[in-house]
């Protein structure tokens, strides 16, 4: 009996190992089909893509902060309880029309301009725009002059006012930062994934935010923009923003 039990035990172990080995052997094939559509890590970003966001203001719920929370969890943004100095990569903005009193609410973050004023003014080139339209700060060459914060028309940037510990992605005292469009998700070896904010908005059931490639006419974001239109914030500055809004009165 004991011998039979041992044999069964060995068989189970063998089968488990065999399955694991088989899995390891097959997995690359499965992953490869995905990688074929994504950017290898050693390749630069391509100007064939223009990553962006679309926000339907009519669907954004007043009081809902799911996108903000998701962003801070994803990117490891935690303040020290000082509202004037804590970083805010994304914020909810409440708009009340001065004439009519009509109230709207929307998430607001770096608008990922095609011609970003922050990139123009940065003395070292730390503020930069990737070929795929994402505006980023290179934390290694940012000298913390804050000129980009003076230049940004959207007040999208924050300065790190205190030492930071346990960061998930590169952050550091004395440098400037802002929404990265979850670049770590876009550069995922398994293929681009949507941003944390859009994912959270969908999970909440509001479905007010879309992430996608503005250069791809077949993407959901492009189709929606083509069908329903969309506006840029401070369109008068002609910065051609990567973040667009719908139903903003």
């Amino acid at each position, binding site marked *: 009996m004991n011998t039979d039990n041992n044999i069964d035990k060995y068989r189970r172990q063998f089968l488990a190992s065999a399955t694991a080995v088989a899995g390891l052997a097959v997995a690359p094939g499965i992953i490869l089909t995905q990688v074929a559509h994504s950017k290898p890590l050693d390749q630069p970003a391509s100007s064939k893509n223009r990553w962006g966001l679309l926000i339907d203001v009519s669907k954004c719920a007043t009081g809902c902060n799911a996108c903000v929370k998701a962003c801070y969890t994803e990117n490891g943004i935690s303040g020290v309880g000082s509202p004037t100095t804590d970083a805010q990569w994304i914020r909810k*903005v409440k708009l009340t029309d001065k004439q009519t009193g009509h109230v709207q609410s929307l998430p607001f973050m770096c608008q990922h301009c095609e011609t970003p004023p922050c990139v123009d003014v940065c*003395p*070292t080139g730390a503020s930069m725009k990737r070929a795929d339209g994402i505006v980023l700060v290179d934390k290694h060459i940012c000298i913390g002059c804050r000129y980009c914060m003076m230049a940004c*028309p959207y007040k999208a*940037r924050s300065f790190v006012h205190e030492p930071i510990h346990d960061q998930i992605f590169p952050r550091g005292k004395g440098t400037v930062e802002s929404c990265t469009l979850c670049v770590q998700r876009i550069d995922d070896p398994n293929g681009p994934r949507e941003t944390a904010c859009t994912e959270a908005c969908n999970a909440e059931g509001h479905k007010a935010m879309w992430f996608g490639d503005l250069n791809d006419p077949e993407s959901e974001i492009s189709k929606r923009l083509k069908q329903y239109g969309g506006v840029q*914030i401070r369109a008068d500055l002609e910065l051609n923003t990567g973040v667009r809004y719908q139903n903003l009165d």
Partner: protein
Amino acid sequence: MKKPRFLELEGRSTGFFALLAILFAFIAAGAGAFLYMEHNGHIVTGMNNQIVWGMPHVFAVFLIVAASGALNVASISSVFNRKMYKPLAPLSAILAVSLLLGGLLILVLDLGRPERLIIAMTYYNPKSIFAWNILLYNGFFAIVLVYLWLMLERRFNKYSSIAGFFAFIWRLTLTTGTGSIFGFLVARSSFDSAILAPMFVIFSFAYGLAIFAVIVVAAYTWTGRTLGNAIVQRMRTLLGVFVGASLYFVLVFHLTNLYFTKEHGFEKFILAGDTSITKLFWIGQILIGGVIPLVLIYMKGFKARSALVVSSLLVIAGGIAQMFVTIIGGQAYPLPIFPGKIVQSSFYDGVINLYTPSLPEILLGLGGVAVAIFVVIFAMKNLRLIPESLADDEIDPHYTPATESAESAA
């Protein structure tokens, strides 16, 4: 008119060492403030994500603007060939370099990552006006120091006017660059204006001359050297012209804004608001920095030397107020992100942001000022920078005793 005899400061009196001790105390306090801010981050300052440039920038930009203005006296002698100013040209050049050094020191030590200064020199974004300014500042040091050397080395005196002309063009470019740091900000209604560059040039004339005048009068009075009324009166009237011109530019800037409906909110905030910015504008910039100096300069009945010193000190105080109004006021007023809407958010959108400078920021600024003054004194002590006498008959080619008595009465 005799050839002036240049002499170093003796620098042995108790007063001299007391002055040095005070300067060292300020420099030490500034250094301590820097270390404190660098260690803890900017959270220990009054600056935040709304007011990103605070008191250090007020001091730094003031000193940088004044630096190019301090070169005026040298420019007037070299470029415009006014002989009366020639004996003071070397001091003018050294003051320009010192003020720029003090200003840049503050600016660099207020960076989030001051230890990365080398990056600012090696990584270069050619489209950044800030990066252009780095070249302009370094160039200013080089050109003015060469100019100074040509003035002090007798064999090469003949080349000094060419260098002076080049320095004059460079200083105009430098202040245009400094003004454009603000003028090129498309996003902010308070700054987005081409007039800021020439306005800063005019400010620089006034601030630089005011500091120069105080230094000259202090140096000559404290060392017991002769300072004639002719040069004092010249500087006094010149300061009046610069202060008047500054007020004119401020008037045009605000009148233009008042004409545009979209700027009414900003203008109301500056001109008729209930924050300290409005008080600083009217009492600091306009009254103390403009109107009272003009009265002291142009009204008869004041002693020339006292009028020059008091009006210069007031112009300096008004200049600091002007920088505060321009730099802090421009950030305190909310960005027009959603025109026509009342905007509310956790990130202080749509509200006027308040700013209270912290002690370390002020000490860092004063430390920079102390460094600038120390360098000037050090140079005067070790180089033959200023003439032994600036008596009227020694510097004024058109001197007659009658002029002296007429100017003494002024």
